[in-house]
Each structure stands twice: as structure tokens, then as C-alpha cells.
């Protein structure tokens, strides 16, 4: 092995000003996660589908020439793409028993179904974070009692409680809010358990102890450290809770506890479709596809988000 001549090297001196610079742009946890998510094709397609459904739900009822409950008794059960000979408007998805335009009904139904699901899940998250946060942070006997309460609630199938609540809640507040209240009353237990677990694991971490040693108050620790750090789990869970809320809405509508008649939701549309399914299959298939596609998109997006936010759990 040759000895390398020292003369070939040159001392350039310590460059203090360049030493501290970072050549690559810094990346945060969220940026990193979004980058991983954008590489997941299935999740991105689903995000696109959800976007399209949301846009259609917002604009179709506004722009459609038909009202939701406008009846055309001259051409009920019209086929898909039927053109009204009188005014020249097209019934893209045909018409139902009373000649109401299904395309308009589907997208105004989407408004109601999505509104119910989003609101219910939002309420669940708020209750879940507060309940789970207190339970996990305080710990001890309080935690024990709070978790036992959840255990008892979970012992009864939630659909049965929701049905009972739907029967009792006054119909005057309008069917949409009744459904939100009924679902929000029982749907939060999963979220609360999750947040509790997350907070319990986090609060023993060194940085929390350091923060406490430096004199941070409980509220600061909760809002500055514990909640932001459990957010990823919460977001994944929100995405996966929405399809379950959509399912609950359509299920309840299907058994006749849905939104009151002049309104339409995906569940009530499916329920109407089932009655005439054997003669006019498209009346069920259209709402069924909408329900399933939305649930599928949220499920796949949720899976993608979980992989992106928690690479350790990736399978």
C-alpha cells in the first residue's frame, strides 16, 4: 500500500459560516407524511373521488333545473337519460315512483348523508378527545371508572341504542339532527379509548417530563404536547369513522327511521329503490353505488393515511 503524499492535501480552514447551513430543505413530520401519502396511488384516487362527490353534492342541487321533491307524474319510472319532451331537460338517472329526478335527489341526498356523517363524527371526536384525554391524563381511579363506563356502553350493540334514541328524540328538531344526536351519543367510545391509550403512552415520555420539570402547567402540556402528538391517530380514526357513520345513516333510513319524507338521503333512496328493485334495478343500484363508493374511498384513504402517518405499522 502506497503512502499518500501529504503534500497533495491542503488545509482549507474551518468555515464557520457554512458549517451551520442545511443544504436540504427541512421536512416536518406532516410534510413527510403527506409525501408518503401522495405516493400511495389508491389513496390519492380515493381522495379524488371524495372530492368529486363533495363538489357534486354542493353544486348539483344548486344548478339542477329540478327541485328535490318536484314531481312529474306524467313520466314516473323514466329510464336513465330520459329527455323530458315538454321542457327538454334530461333526467340523467331517470325518475322515481313520483317522477322525481333521481340525479337531483342523489346529490341532495349526498348533502344530507354527508352532513349527518361529518357532523356526527365531529361531535364524536370532540367528546372522545375530552373524555379520553381526561381519562388518560388523570389516570388512577378516575380512569378506571371512566373506562368501566365505556365498557358498559360498549356491551350493548350501538345500533340498538341508536334505534331507541331515534324513537324517543322529538321529531320536531327535524330528522337530520335527531340522527346526528343519536349517533353522537354512542359513537364516541372508540375515539375516547384510542385517545386515552395514546395519551397514557405519551405522558411517560421524557419530553413531557422535561416540560413538567420546567414548570409547564397541565393545560399547556395537554394542548401543546399531548393532543398534537395524538393527532395522527385521531385523523386516521376520523377517516375510518366516516364510512361507519354513513353506514349507520343508510341502515337507519333503510329500516324506516331515516330523515322525514320530503327530504332524501342515500339511505332513504336505497330504501325506495329496494321496493321496486325487481322491476327497476337502477333505482337501487345508483344509491347503492354512491354509498359503497364513498365508504370504500374513505376506508382506503384511511388505510393510506395510517400507513403514511405511522410508517412503523406499515404492512
Amino acid at each position, binding site marked *: 500500500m502506497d503512502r499518500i503524499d501529504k503534500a497533495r492535501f491542503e488545509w482549507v480552514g474551518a468555515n464557520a459560516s457554512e458549517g451551520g447551513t442545511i443544504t436540504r430543505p427541512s421536512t416536518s413530520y406532516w410534510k413527510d407524511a403527506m409525501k408518503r401519502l401522495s405516493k400511495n396511488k389508491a389513496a390519492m384516487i380515493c381522495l379524488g373521488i371524495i372530492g368529486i362527490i363533495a363538489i357534486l353534492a354542493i353544486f348539483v342541487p344548486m344548478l339542477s333545473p329540478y327541485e328535490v321533491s318536484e314531481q312529474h307524474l306524467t313520466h314516473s319510472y323514466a329510464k336513465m337519460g330520459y329527455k323530458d319532451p315538454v321542457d327538454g331537460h334530461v333526467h340523467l338517472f331517470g325518475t322515481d315512483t313520483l317522477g322525481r329526478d333521481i340525479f337531483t335527489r342523489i346529490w341532495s341526498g349526498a348533502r344530507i348523508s354527508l352532513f349527518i356523517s361529518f357532523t356526527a363524527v365531529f361531535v364524536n371526536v370532540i367528546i372522545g378527545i375530552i373524555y379520553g384525554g381526561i381519562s388518560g391524563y388523570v389516570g388512577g381511579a378516575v380512569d378506571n371508572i371512566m373506562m368501566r363506563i365505556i365498557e358498559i356502553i360498549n*356491551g350493548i350493540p350501538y345500533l*340498538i341504542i341508536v*334505534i331507541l334514541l331515534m*324513537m324517543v328524540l322529538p321529531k320536531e328538531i327535524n330528522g337530520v339532527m335527531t340522527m346526528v344526536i343519536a349517533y353522537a351519543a354512542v359513537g364516541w367510545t372508540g375515539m375516547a379509548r384510542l385517545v386515552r391509550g395514546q395519551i397514557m403512552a405519551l405522558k411517560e415520555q421524557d419530553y413531557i417530563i422535561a416540560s413538567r420539570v420546567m414548570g409547564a402547567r397541565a393545560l399547556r402540556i395537554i394542548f401543546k404536547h399531548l393532543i398534537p402528538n395524538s393527532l395522527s391517530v385521531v385523523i386516521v380514526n376520523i377517516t375510518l369513522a366516516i*364510512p361507519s357513520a354513513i353506514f349507520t345513516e343508510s341502515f337507519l333510513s*333503510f*329500516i324506516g327511521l331515516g330523515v322525514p319524507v320530503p327530504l332524501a338521503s342515500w339511505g332513504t333512496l336505497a330504501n325506495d329503490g*329496494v321496493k321496486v*328493485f325487481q322491476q327497476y334495478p337502477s333505482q337501487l343500484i345508483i344509491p*347503492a353505488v354512491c354509498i359503497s363508493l364513498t365508504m370504500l374511498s374513505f376506508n382506503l384513504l384511511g388505510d393510506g393515511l395510517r400507513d403514511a402517518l405511522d410508517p412503523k405499522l406499515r404492512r
Partner: protein
Amino acid sequence: MIKYIVKRLFYAILTLLVLVALTFFMMRLLPGDPFIGEKAIPETTLKALNEKYGLDKPMMTQFIMYLKNIFRGDFGISMESRRPVVDIIKQAFPYSFDLGIRSLIFATIMGVFLGIVAAVKRGKIGDTLTMFIAIIGVSVPSFIVGAILQYYLGLKLFQVTGFKMFPITGWDSFSSKILPAFALSFGSLATISRLMRTSMLDVLGQDYIKTAKSKGLSQRKIIWKHAVRNAIMPVITVIGPIAASVLTGAFVVENIFSIPGMGKFFVQSIQTQDYTMISGITLFYGTFLVLANLIVDLAYGFIDPRVKLTDAKE
């Protein structure tokens, strides 16, 4: 172990009490009065009626009466058909139980099997296919699966081939049970197969699997003797919730396929606002599920010794 059983029993009883209280107070909260009818009832008759049914007593006494009646198996009389609720349950439950148990068994066996296949063939076509079925199963509600199966396999297939393979309604011959049971089990099957796959992948990455491999065991023995036995544990824990979802799913599936089970009666009683039926069936379902959960919990404690260890540590 005894401590564990006692604890579980205690929770089961508590849950049941909460359920009974829930149905009782819901009934009291309902708008209207049982004696409001088309004809106005004279004051004295109303008083006598209230006295007869104990409605003049304080709430707590009424609740105790209600509890006693339920304990004796008296769920009241259906407002719609004027038959005792218990009789209706006795008549309808065998159908629901038959449907439910078939669906549960099918979902568990198929779900576990698909989960194993997906985990062993990870990343290959078998895995992709299974996970595709699973995500569809989680996303398509059972009433849609039921209606579509009924239309295409029941009606269309018969119209096209002229051969009646699957009857679209009823619950008598074996072939009439296939479609409803499948529709009902599809969602649970999907949940179980996803869970089984995750759990199986977890186990396959463990050291003892490597040990088994390095001592020369065949792939089949490793999978069936070591991996599946350990991976199936989490699946057992979800059998309780799965039973609940099969049971509630039956409300709509029984309706679609016109099976004279409890789900059909339940939905009918919701539509006709037959409150005694609703509370009776709710209580029956609740009790049934709480017991099922209890059995699953206890079975889990017996099968997996680790459960006892973690329990003792607390």
C-alpha cells in the same frame, strides 16, 4: 381465574341493568299515553286503568315492577298483534338464530382461511385479491349485498337459465339459506380476514417461527402448528362484536329475503311504533349479546393463559 370470572360476570349484570333501565326510561319518555284513544275515557275509568297497570305509583316502584316482570320472562303484550311478546320471540328466534349461526360460522371459517392465505402469499396475487374482497366487504352494507344477490343470483339467474338455483324468499330448503347467510356474513368475513392477515403477519415475523424454520420444519407445519394457533387469538376477541353486527345486520337481511325471524318483527314494530315489542326484543337481544360476550371473554381467558397474567398484574 375465579377473580376474572367474577369480574366479567359483574360487568355482564351491570350492563344488563343499564339496558333494562334504558328501555324503561325510554318508554316513559315517549310522547303520548297508552290510554289515549279515539274515544275520551271517563276520569274514573282512567284512574282505575292507571291503578291496574301501576301507573299511579312512583317511578322507582314502577321500575322495580318492570324488573320483576322481566325477570319472570314477561315482556308485555305487543300493542299491534295483541300477542305476548315472549310468544313472538319464541316463534321467531329459531329462524334468526339459525341464520345468525350459519353466517357467523361461515364468516369465521372463510375469514380466517382468507387471512391465512393473504399473509402467507403476502404481496402476491392471492393477497391482493383477498384484500380487495375484504375492502369491498367492509364498504358495502349488507342490505345492498342482499338485494343485489337476490336480484342477480335469485331472479336473473332463474330468468336466464330457467333453473331455480336460489329461491329469493323464505327459509326452508337448504338452497334458500345460502344467499341470506352469505349476504349477512360478507361484512364480518371481510373484517375477520383483515384482522387475521395482520395478526398472521405479526406472528410470522416472530423469532420462534425462524427457529421452527431453521430446525427444518415444513412450511405447512410451521403455518398450522405455530403461526395459526397464535395468530387466531385476536380473532376470538372480535367474535363478540361480530356477533352483534351479524345480529343487527339480520334486521335488514331478514326483511329483504322475507325470513320470518326477529329482525323482521323488530323492523315492523319500529315502523308501526309498537313500543312493547321494541323494548321486549331490545332486551332479549341485549341479554343474548351480553351473554355471548361473556362466553367469549371467559373462553379467551381459558384458551390464552397470557390473559390471566396481565389481569393479575393490574
